[in-house]
């Protein structure tokens, strides 16, 4: 059963948000595996979303990770905020692909969505690490990379074997990037590399 669906626990039906806050309050520290099944963020939204418990306010965080203490990410927001983000059994983690908390590193950027806890922390429902989604123009093509222009900046987009896919004019995803052309406009969804500012490409959507 997906965590986006209801699960029986103690005779009471739990939605995803109730589950993750319960896990956070209970001090659950198991990350990367779930008692409820798959934790893919896309799958979490594949089914109609259950009504969120209005008694538990939603929360969002954005910034860079400055420390990792067990299952808590200490994040410095880009506008001076500070967030403590709890990873629980119900947290889905994306870093170029769906992965586990072990892939998260200090220095990574992230967006996190979850529930605001009474102690000021955020119990994360989903964490997207280093994710970027940029509009670019293709300036160069090599076997293992695309040279991209994003605004006035030049960025290298690395083609990752068994991961990078392409979509041509909204068509089905394919691993074949041979129809990519210089000068083509594209949207690149991928993972930013903090070390050099380049991008590992998850998906490139080619336009006209």
């Amino acid at each position, binding site marked *: 059963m997906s965590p986006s669906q209801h699960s029986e626990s103690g005779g009471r039906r739990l939605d995803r948000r109730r589950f993750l806050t319960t896990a956070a309050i209970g001090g659950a520290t198991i990350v990367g595996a779930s008692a409820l099944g798959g934790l893919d963020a896309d799958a979490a939204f594949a089914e109609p979303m259950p009504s969120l418990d209005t008694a538990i306010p939603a929360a969002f965080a954005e910034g860079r990770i400055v420390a990792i203490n067990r299952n808590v990410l200490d994040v410095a927001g880009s506008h001076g905020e500070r967030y403590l983000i709890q990873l629980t059994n119900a947290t889905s983690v994306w870093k170029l692909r769906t992965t586990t908390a072990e892939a998260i590193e200090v220095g990574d950027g992230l967006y996190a969505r979850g529930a605001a806890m009474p102690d000021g922390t955020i119990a994360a429902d989903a964490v997207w690490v280093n994710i970027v989604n940029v509009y670019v123009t293709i300036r160069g093509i090599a076997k293992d990379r695309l040279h991209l222009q994003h605004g006035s900046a030049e960025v290298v987009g690395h083609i990752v074997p068994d991961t990078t896919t392409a979509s041509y004019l909204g068509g089905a995803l394919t691993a074949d990037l041979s129809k990519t052309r210089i000068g083509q406009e594209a949207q690149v969804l991928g993972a930013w590399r903090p070390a050099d500012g380049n*991008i590992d490409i998850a998906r490139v959507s080619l336009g006209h």
Partner: protein
Amino acid sequence: MACGSTSLWAGEATWFCCGNAWGSCGSAGTGACGTCQSSKHMAAWPNLSAACYDITRPDLCGEGMPRRTCGAVMNVKHQCSGATVCVTLADCGPRTKSFCGEATCCNGACRTNRVIDLTPSAFSAIGSLSSGKLPVYIYE
């Protein structure tokens, strides 16, 4: 100004970053309205101004979208889940003309053409950032 329930448009929603943030967003700036931040429920609209429209040209994809300016608010609703987020316009985009005919589907129903760009905060309120695109209805 409050978000309303009068149907305005339908199509694909994508996401973008803005403001002073990490990664590729660092050079994005605060958008055409000077207020855009990734951590707030904000959006980019293809017809924010005449100059904006010249860049995005949704009409070339058959989308004669109306003018809405900085500060206008809209409800954006996921076509299938019903999840809804209220956003404030803060930038120009997406570049609809570059992806004419592109469709995003759920439960067998598809929405065509990029008609609104959401900040990560707004997009993640109704879908997963890793999906990149969502089929949505827009209300004002």
